[in-house]
């Protein structure tokens, strides 16, 4: 009990010291006018003379969503056009320019077919020769 009373007296003593040292701090003269100048400047720079209320927030949110979906669509379109070109540049080259720029898809197919024909013919020839020998 006595200890609690002593502690409370100490707190009061400390409180008094703190209050005494608090002093009286006031804003400098003309402070509010300077703040309001800055506020008006801010309002003018923002192109409005009033702070937007909560009513304008849904519209802002809608604009943001529209802009975001537009950007996403543009990104998907750009991706779908560019990705195949980057991944398969040889296959996408037009056939007309194939001759000038190198073998196009049709030339490659033709070459493969010719190779296959030679292989098949060779195999058949060998078989025929082998058969006659037998």
């Amino acid at each position, binding site marked *: 009990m006595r200890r609690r009373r002593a502690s409370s007296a100490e707190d009061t003593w*400390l409180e008094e010291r703190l209050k005494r040292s608090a002093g009286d701090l006031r804003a400098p003269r003309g402070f509010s006018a300077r703040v309001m100048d800055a506020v008006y400047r801010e309002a003018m720079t923002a192109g409005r*003379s009033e702070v937007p209320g909560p009513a304008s927030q849904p519209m802002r949110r809608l604009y943001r969503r529209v802009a975001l979906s537009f950007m996403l669509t543009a990104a998907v379109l750009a991706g779908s056009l560019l990705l195949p070109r980057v991944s398969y540049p040889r296959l996408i080259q037009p056939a007309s320019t194939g001759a000038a720029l190198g073998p196009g898809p049709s030339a490659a197919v033709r070459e493969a077919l010719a190779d296959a024909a030679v292989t098949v013919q060779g195999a058949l020839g060998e078989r025929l020769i082998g058969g006659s020998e037998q």
Partner: protein
Amino acid sequence: MVSERARTAAKTDEELVERVRGGETRLYAQLVERYQDPVYSMAARFVRAGGDAEDIAQEAFLRAYRGLAEFKGEARFSTWLYRITWNLCADWMRRHRKRGRAPLSMEEAREVADGRVDLEGDMLLAEQRRAVRDALDRLDEKYRVVVTLLYFQKLSYEEIAAVLDVPMKTVETRLYRARRLLKESLRRAGMEEPT
């Protein structure tokens, strides 16, 4: 006939905030005038540099104005404003980590200049005040801020918790430790205690 000033002066903070949000920007001046002293004094107590304290106080009001659209009114306008001020002060203190203070604070200098302090008669009192402030300066920032907000800014425990964004229990604990540290510090400085 009631003047415009008198009519708006009687408005509550909430009414003024609503009207400013509704487009009456000039009414924000009422809020500035109402809170310029506590906001400035809060900045001056943490920053201790005249120009910087004024800049911080001005920035706090500007930020509050910019954020009015987002202000939901869950806390009181004053608490919200103090919180902005405290965040600015904390940023300033982080940037200027060096602690310590000028030999004569701006506040003390002004008091002397105004003649509010009688240099001869109040020498002892001035010495005591200085000891208390030195003890405060030696406190860790988290303890110093609760003491400052409670004793100098006269905020309630709830307001301090809201300004610092900590639970009320934390405020109580910090305050308890701050008091203990302050008492020890003052005892070492030779200030008498009640027996």
